[in-house]
């Protein structure tokens, strides 16, 4: 069984006290930061108010990218779960990608739900509508929390990986079912996002910047989380070696 090595580790390291960043992630993080500053500048100041919604349209610059990332994270978790289950080698890296993406995804989903709710309150006077997108996102949020709980059930790394991969794939099945049943249930409330089709060039550009910035942020966070998860697994394995030595010592005395 090959144990993965921590990034930047030197052969004689006995204590891993280095950060999880590499040149690549530093560059990535820097770009994400620039992107967010850009977004703030454009989103809050330079882009115009919407004709109908006024200032509140600026919520869109956070809400839409968050929602987009939430779904991207979900798709990545699904693909990584399938990758773990269906590749011959069953590499644990797939499992860790799925877990890292899920954790970051939950964060963005929470942001999307809150900003969406506030936007609804300001624009239509209601904190919540039963439209399929919002409701499905809420369900996805809860499903993810369940998925993260399943990851913590214990057992060996591979047992955790197999179990959560299966749960993730069932979640992938569940989401379209929820989406369609809610859509058929409340067709009257089917409201397309205001962001479709009525945006001026500058607004669209800001939105695009926002999506790019958030995506960079997502990748940056997932990479870091992936590395801490890898190191966590290494610690577990090293802990096993220590525990093995202790265990064998038990036997010598008796």
């Amino acid at each position, binding site marked *: *069984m090959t144990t993965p090595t921590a990034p930047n580790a030197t052969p004689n390291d006995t204590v891993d006290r280095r950060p999880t960043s590499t040149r690549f992630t530093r560059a990535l993080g820097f770009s994400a930061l620039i992107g967010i500053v850009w977004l703030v500048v454009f989103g809050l100041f330079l882009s115009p108010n919407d004709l109908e919604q006024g200032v509140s349209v600026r919520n869109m610059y956070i809400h839409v990218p968050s929602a987009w990332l939430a779904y991207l994270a979900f798709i990545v978790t699904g693909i990584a779960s399938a990758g773990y289950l269906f590749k011959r080698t069953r590499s644990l890296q797939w499992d860790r990608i799925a877990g890292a993406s899920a954790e970051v995804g939950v964060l963005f989903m929470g942001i999307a739900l809150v900003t969406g709710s506030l936007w609804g309150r300001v624009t239509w006077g209601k904190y919540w509508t039963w439209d399929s997108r919002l409701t499905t996102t809420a369900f996805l949020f809860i499903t993810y929390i369940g998925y993260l709980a399943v990851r913590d059930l*214990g*057992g*060996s790394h*591979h*047992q955790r990986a197999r179990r959560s991969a299966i749960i993730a794939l069932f979640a992938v099945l569940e989401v379209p079912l929820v989406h369609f049943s809610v859509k058929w249930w409340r067709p009257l409330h089917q409201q397309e996002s205001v962001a479709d089709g009525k945006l001026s060039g500058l607004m669209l550009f800001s939105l695009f910047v926002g999506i790019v910035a958030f995506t960079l942020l997502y990748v940056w966070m997932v990479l870091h989380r992936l590395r801490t998860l890898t190191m966590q697994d290494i610690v*577990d394995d090293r*802990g*096993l070696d220590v*525990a*093995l030595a202790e*265990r*064998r*010592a*038990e*036997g*010598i005395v*008796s």
Partner: protein
Amino acid sequence: MSHRNGRIANPAISVAIRMEPVVEPVVQLTGVVAVVGGFPVLAGADLTVHRGEILLLRGPNGAGKTSLLRLCAGLLPVERGVATVLGHDLSVSRTAVRAFVGMLGHSNGLYADLTVTDNVRFWGATVGATDDEIAASLARMGLANRLADVPVSRLSAGQRRRTALACLVARRAQLWLLDEPHAGLDAAGRDELDATLREAAAAGATVMVASHELERAGALATRVVELGGGLVREVPMGGPA
């Protein structure tokens, strides 16, 4: 055999084993590490078991006896090392070996609301045993009488143990794994158990017993190993441990 309380084990009915295919050695463990909840219950165990042996596993509580048996049954994943049982590599698949293994663990694996006969019939049916074979198992363990239609929840601990044994006999497994099987049985029950195990070994099965009952199991066993700290040590028979 005991005639107490009308429980008569019928020694005329012998234990049968399904013998295809024959594999030797039956169990081969090399440097096997098994982990439960982060704790290495087996820390590099080496063991070879041959067909027809009755192997006694000794050791203090927590030494890894139960884990070793569970591993051989395909219940515990192999973390490190190589474990081959009846020709099946457990790192590759833990499910293939299960058809040929019978285990009597700490719990009995019985359904409390069903009767003795229901239980043995169900467990026998899972291995495709015929009605005759099931009836034979019941009779062999002295259960084919007034106890047959009693729900398991109303049986004593010793009677439940015997029911579980009947289920095990019905399986006609090649490898028998028993974890503290004598616990809860009275003297007559223990005699019957020993006779059953000897017959199984004579019929071609391999038996591994984890037990604290050193004298009795020592008399029963053809070979003894000691577990300590997740490792296995041979114990020469007939001398001081």
